[in-house]
């Protein structure tokens, strides 16, 4: 099984207000592995991620999304704490939005076989103007695809190159040192035109 080292976890965090008041915290988690060069600090890598990758994606989200920040750390060391980096990006698309549990979904594929080496990401909230019935509009699909493809490219920082990976939480041992990180580099990203669901993000029942 592919054992990874120098794997950094970046958690992008934001909030969206519910219709009835209160807000939902939205988190998207990404993993990058050092491919070459010397390891950089987690916060520096997160800053590079924020400025070159997340900024293009967050622009596709509905304006109700308010960025909070990024938490980053190397998951090779179970004792390392997250480092916080403030967000600079909010959603930009105006107009009405879809319910919170409707999301743009993409599939992540790796060279290694098996369900432990596949992944998916769900991005929400979505603007109604980006969708037509069950799917993204053609224009929205193109811009979402551009943002997603950009998200899963390498991060280059001071000679170090980080590549996006899928980490298997089932096969890895991340609770105590020495940690074992099992995963595989992402080889392709596929955007679903069909609107996906992310039930944990839905608003609580109101009658």
């Amino acid at each position, binding site marked *: 099984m592919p054992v990874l080292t120098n794997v950094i976890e970046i958690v992008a965090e934001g909030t969206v207000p519910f219709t009835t008041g209160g807000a939902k915290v939205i988190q998207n988690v990404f993993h990058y592995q050092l491919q070459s060069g010397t390891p950089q600090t987690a916060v520096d890598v997160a800053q590079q991620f924020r400025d070159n990758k997340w900024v293009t994606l967050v622009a596709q989200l509905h304006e109700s999304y308010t960025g909070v920040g990024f938490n980053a750390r190397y998951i090779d060391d179970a004792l390392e704490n997250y480092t916080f980096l403030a967000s600079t990006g909010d959603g930009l698309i105006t107009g009405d939005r*879809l319910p919170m549990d409707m999301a743009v979904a993409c599939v992540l594929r790796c060279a290694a076989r098996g369900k432990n080496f596949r992944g998916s990401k769900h991005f929400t909230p979505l603007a*109604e103007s980006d969708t037509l019935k069950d799917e993204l509009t053609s224009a929205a699909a193109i811009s979402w695809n551009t943002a997603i493809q950009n998200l899963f490219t390498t991060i280059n920082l001071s000679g170090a190159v980080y590549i996006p990976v899928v980490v298997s939480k089932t096969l890895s041992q991340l609770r105590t040192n020495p940690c074992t990180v099992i995963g595989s580099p992402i080889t392709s990203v596929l955007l679903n035109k*069909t609107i996906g669901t992310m039930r944990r993000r839905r*608003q609580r029942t109101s009658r």
Partner: protein
Amino acid sequence: MGSRLYTLGIVTQGVVTSSGGQIRPVRNSFVYYSATPPTPFPWIPFQLAFESVVWSPIVALLHSDYTGIAYNAYYPARFTPGTGHLVGSAPSGGVMGDRLPLSVAITVRLNSDFRGKNFQGLKSFGPVAETHTIDDELTPLAHAQWTTAIGNMLVPLLDGAGNTWHPAIESRVLTALDPNPLAADCVDMTYATVRFRLGLKRHRRERTVTF
């Protein structure tokens, strides 16, 4: 508890064409019971009564992508063995404009005077028009319209032979466990509440289309 010998079900059948061209079936089922042994009756008057009282007000609030096909009325096998009766053609949705994805639905909680999950129910109606919603919820106007339409689900229906059919919540679990194979465990549906929050009906969603 709630053991009934004379029950019937009616399923509304319709389809929605998804953005990718797939034909997705949308069904909603309703259960009724008669307190007394019913005299034989023709299906058509019952179907017409169901359509005019219950289904037409509901379907008028669905998005126009919904195309009604037919009603499938049946006696549960424990009452009179036999197949379903396809009766009539069902009306189609009446609200124009854009719609939400098929997996979004208007959720209605059904309650009876009995406690326990066996005597509660849930109905999910879709497709939902965008004009009926704001963010995660129904607009107040749409909620009022849906509440009015759903109230008709509590009305007893008359068939052509003078039998009265009461709306019911049937427990499939208790019915299966009932030692009397002829009885169905169902109770009077006494409350139907439309939720403000939009619900999910994932079985209905379009199969994945990739970019």
